[in-house]
């Protein structure tokens, strides 16, 4: 059973890394700035899923904290950049 789970997690890892590659191509090519922010959003979600799948694959619960931190800071970064595109300023008086 462990072997099946190991290979399933490895397959999921491969899918997430391919998704991150798609996001990177969109980040480089994206015609407008909001496309790039959207690509960054997709990349950080995929990175968080990579951390989670790696935790399942190795059986250690340490990677959960990594995933939680990536989710928190990725949300802050993406929201700050979207706010900057919207108003030209992140924190308004």
């Amino acid at each position, binding site marked *: *059973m462990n072997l099946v*789970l190991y290979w*399933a997690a490895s397959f*999921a890892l491969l899918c997430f890394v*391919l998704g991150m590659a798609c996001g990177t191509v969109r980040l480089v090519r994206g015609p407008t700035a909001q*496309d790039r922010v959207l690509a960054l959003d997709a990349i950080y*979600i*995929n990175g968080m899923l990579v951390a989670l799948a790696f935790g399942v694959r190795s059986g250690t619960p340490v990677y959960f904290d990594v995933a*939680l931190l990536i989710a928190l800071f990725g949300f802050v970064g993406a929201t700050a950049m979207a706010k900057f595109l*919207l108003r030209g300023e992140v924190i308004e008086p």
Partner: protein
Amino acid sequence: MSADIPLWAGIPASILLVAGGLLALVGSAGLLRFNNFFCRIHAPTLGHTMGAGCVLVASILVFSALQQRPVVQEILITLLLFISSPVTAMLLMRAAVYRGRRQRGESYPAATPPGASNRQTDL
């Protein structure tokens, strides 16, 4: 992995991991292939909701079976994602509408005073 994982947790976790991987991949491929920002913003939400949900449930199953007690801390990430992902999508969408209007040289509503409704009905 050190301990052996029982069958009741291993099989659903494997299926959920494969499904989550495929969903996230489809979402990211949509991000790459659509040709318009307003189409593109729909695609990654598939990976943000279903993909992340599948992987988080698989993680809950595996760690509950490994540690032989219910491990539900992954619900934290699920809650955080389900709150934060629509906020980011809404802000990005409004930014795209605003910048598109400004690029076309159309007038756009100025900053509304607090308390006033700033709903934009027409795209």
